[in-house]
C-alpha cells in the first residue's frame, strides 16, 4: 500500500468524498492498478459484512414474530430440565421396577384367573356329584304318590337283631 490514494479509495466506496474529490480519485483508480485492487478488496469485504449483518437481522425478526404469535414463554416440552446424575439414576431404577412389577402382576393375574376357572369347574363338578349322591340317598326315591299309613303289628324278631346293629336280614 504505497499509493497515497489508498485511504481515499476506501472513503470513495463509503461515499464520504465530495464530488470533485471523487472524480479525481476515480481518474486515479483508472490508471493505478494498486488502487484498483484496493477497491476490489474493499468492495468484497463490504459485501461480506452486509451479508452477515442482514442474516442476523432476519433471524432476530423471525424470533420476534414467533414470540408475538406463540407467546413470550417457550413451550414446556421444549424446556430442558437439568437433573443431578444420582436422581436421574434413581428415577431410571424406579421406572424399570414399575415396568417389571406391571409385567409380573399381569402374568400372575392371568395365572390366578386360570386357577379360578379350574376351581369353578371343579366345584361345579363336585356340586353335580353331590346332587347326584343326594338324589341317590334321598328318601324321595320311595315316593310314588301313595297315602301315608299307620298300623300296629306284632313285633318281628328282626327288630331284636336291629338292636344289635344288623343292617340287613
Amino acid at each position, binding site marked *: 500500500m504505497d499509493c497515497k490514494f489508498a485511504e481515499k479509495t476506501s472513503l470513495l466506496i463509503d461515499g464520504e468524498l465530495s464530488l470533485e474529490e471523487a472524480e479525481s480519485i476515480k481518474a486515479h483508480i483508472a490508471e493505478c492498478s494498486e488502487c484498483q485492487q484496493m477497491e476490489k478488496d474493499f468492495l468484497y469485504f463490504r459485501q461480506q459484512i452486509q451479508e452477515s449483518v442482514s442474516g442476523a437481522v432476519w433471524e432476530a425478526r423471525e424470533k420476534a414474530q414467533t414470540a408475538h404469535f406463540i407467546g413470550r414463554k417457550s413451550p414446556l416440552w421444549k424446556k430442558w430440565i437439568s437433573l443431578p446424575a444420582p436422581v436421574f439414576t434413581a428415577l431410571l431404577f424406579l421406572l424399570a421396577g414399575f415396568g417389571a412389577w406391571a409385567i409380573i402382576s399381569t402374568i400372575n393375574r392371568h395365572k390366578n384367573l386360570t386357577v379360578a376357572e379350574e376351581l369353578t369347574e371343579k366345584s361345579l363338578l363336585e356340586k353335580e356329584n353331590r346332587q347326584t349322591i343326594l338324589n341317590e340317598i334321598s*328318601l324321595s326315591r*320311595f315316593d310314588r304318590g*301313595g*297315602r*301315608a299309613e*299307620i298300623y300296629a303289628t306284632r313285633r318281628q324278631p328282626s327288630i331284636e337283631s336291629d338292636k344289635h346293629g344288623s343292617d340287613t336280614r
Partner: protein
Amino acid sequence: MKIKKVFLLITILFTVSLIGVNRSLSAKADEQKRVRFQIVAAQENSTERKVLSQTTIEGLAGTDFNVNLQTANFKLHASFICDLVAPDKLKIKSKLDTRRFYGYSPANLPLYEEDAQNHTLILGFDENIVLLPFGRNSGGSGNETLKIEITPTLFADVSSAESSDALKININKPLPSGEITVEAFKNPHRFQVEAIVLADGREIARGTSEVLFDEEQEIRLAPNTAAKNSAQLLTAKFTVNKYTRNRPQDFVGIGYRIFQAHLENQAQTEILSGSGIAILGNDLRYQLNNNQLADDKKYELRFNVRAALSEQNK
C-alpha cells in the same frame, strides 16, 4: 257284741286303707316307669330289608314324640301322644299330616296335595307301630317301601332319682340325607277342668272332671239350690287340644260345646260352642245370652283348667 262290731269295723277300715296305700304305691311305681321308643327307618322289598336310620327316645311314661320327614317334594309331620293306660298297654294317639308338591297351576302357582289323619292305637309291649310315609309300594322290581317302625319298651329305672326324670334321645344311626328328624317332649296329659254357670253373678251350677289331652270329655253341670229352673240342665263337652310352655303359667288350647237337656223328651240341644286359649289356673269366661236359656237373667260360663294332681309332680 259291741266290741265285736267295733273290731270288725276297724279291721275293714284297716284293710281298705291298706288297699288304698297299695294302689297309691303302685300308681307311684307306674309314674316312675320309663318307656323307650326305638324308631327305625328301613327300606324293604319282598326279599331284603335295610336299616337306614335308628333313633331311641327314652323318658317317663307319658313321653310324647314327633317324627318328621321332609324331602324336596314331600313333608310328613307325625305326632304321637302316648299314655300308659295299663301296666302292659300303651294308648297312642297319632296325627299324620302330609303335604306333597303336586305341580303348577295355569297361573304358575304351586299346587300341593294335603292329607290329615288321626289314629288311636292301643298297643301292647309285644307290638310295634309301623308307619309308611309314602304308603305301600308293591309289585314290580325295585319297588321298595320305606317303613318307620316304632317299638316301645317299658322298664323300671334303677338309676338315681335325678336322672330318672331325664328325657333322652340317642341317634344310634343317623340318616345321611338328614330327611328324618325326631323330637320328644313331656307335657301334661291330664287336666282338672272346672265349669261353673252363673246367673246374675250367682253360681247356679257346677261340674268338675278330669280331661285327657285331645279327648272330648263330658262335664255335667249339676244345678245347686239357687237354680230355680231345674229343667235347664246343662252339660259341657270339653277338649284340651294344645299345650304351650310359657312362664309364669303354661297355656292350653281348649274347645267346648254346651248342651241343654230337655227333661220331657231326654233330648239335648247345643246352645253354645267355641274355642280359646286358657292360662293354666286362670278363669276363662263366656257370656251365655238370654235367648239360649230363655230367661231374663244374665248367664255366664266359667272354665278353670289346671294340670291334674298326678301331673303336677312330673
